[in-house]
């Protein structure tokens, strides 16, 4: 009989404890963050350059540049066009985010408008450097992406360089990234 009372008391205490924990555990303050994201027609688009070494993908927001590198230094000043079809001023820069077999080639990538230019990325001796300099893309204008001083280092293989073209409204930290892939093949 005494054992029954003990069991009953313990069971009741457990139930009370569970209820207390449940009640205490559900007391919280809340804050809310709502967002609405919508599609935007690209205000800046990529287009094939006159050097005909590029492939521009759907919507003009990503592209690939493929070149066979040789032992003789070569330059492709009009590899890809960056076009602003709107009355907006933008700043653009090129930044790498991945690469393979950098040591196969030496090469530089620039942005230019025929009259001024901005060095962006340089690959040399297996090392890569990017300036991070922004270049102006004025309203309703076109600038060009150029591949300069491309030379292979006498080894068979392919260097793949993945970059982002960063496009921002001047003096803001809102920006858009387009993927541009470079493939330099050494045969």
């Amino acid at each position, binding site marked *: 009989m005494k054992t029954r009372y003990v069991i009953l008391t313990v069971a009741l205490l457990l139930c009370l404890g569970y209820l207390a924990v449940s009640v205490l555990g559900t007391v919280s303050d809340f804050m809310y963050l709502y*967002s609405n*994201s919508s*599609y*935007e027609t*690209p205000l800046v688009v990529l287009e094939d350059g006159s050097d005909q070494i590029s492939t521009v993908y759907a919507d003009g927001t990503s592209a690939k540049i493929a070149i066979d590198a040789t032992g003789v230094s070569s330059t492709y000043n009009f590899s890809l066009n960056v076009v602003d079809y709107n009355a907006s001023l933008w700043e653009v820069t090129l930044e790498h985010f991945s690469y393979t077999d950098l040591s196969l080639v030496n090469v530089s990538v620039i942005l230019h408008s025929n009259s001024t230019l901005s060095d962006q990325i340089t690959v040399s001796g297996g090392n890569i450097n990017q300036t991070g300099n922004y270049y102006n893309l004025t309203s309703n204008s076109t600038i060009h992406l150029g591949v300069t001083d491309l030379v292979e280092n006498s080894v068979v293989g392919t260097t793949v360089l993945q970059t982002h073209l960063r496009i921002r409204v001047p003096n803001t930290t809102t920006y*858009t*990234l387009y993927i541009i892939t470079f493939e330099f093949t050494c045969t």
Partner: protein
Amino acid sequence: MKMNYRKSLKFLVLLVSAILIATVSATVYDYMYLNANVGVQGMSLAWVSGADATSAGTEISGVTASLNTLKGPPNGTRIYRDPVRVNNTGASTVTFNLTISTVSGDTSYLDSIYVRLYNYTDDVSIQNMTVWSSGAQGSDLAGLQLPANNMWRFQWEITWKSTATTSHSVAVNLKIQVPV
């Protein structure tokens, strides 16, 4: 027909008594009382507009922040580095959970949405939240600890699929839960 008034009177008294008893019984209650003083407790966390509040369409109303004009091109990634921040104005660290309440709308055209938390002062990465990726809603973040007098910025990254068009949009509702 002869009427027995005495019996009728008795029956009437009995009937009235029954009605009275029934009425009184029905309106008998037991009462318990719960008195509470509800004070206004100031939350030490608060939303603050960031540097990209204009482009993101940030609006703050009490405990609710809304980013009304986030946009993104197809097959490219739009990044709002600093649309909104959360500030701990209190004297002690606040531990909270960041949860995804809903992701709704044209999600089949959405490639991904990421929210990355950074310390506003030194730009150190705190944690990344996948809101939407690979056709599915991401996971909540639990046990985030915002030190006293510190502020975190919420960086939003939006990528639409190449199949998206101008009619597509997605609504995301996040919630900060601060256990008391």
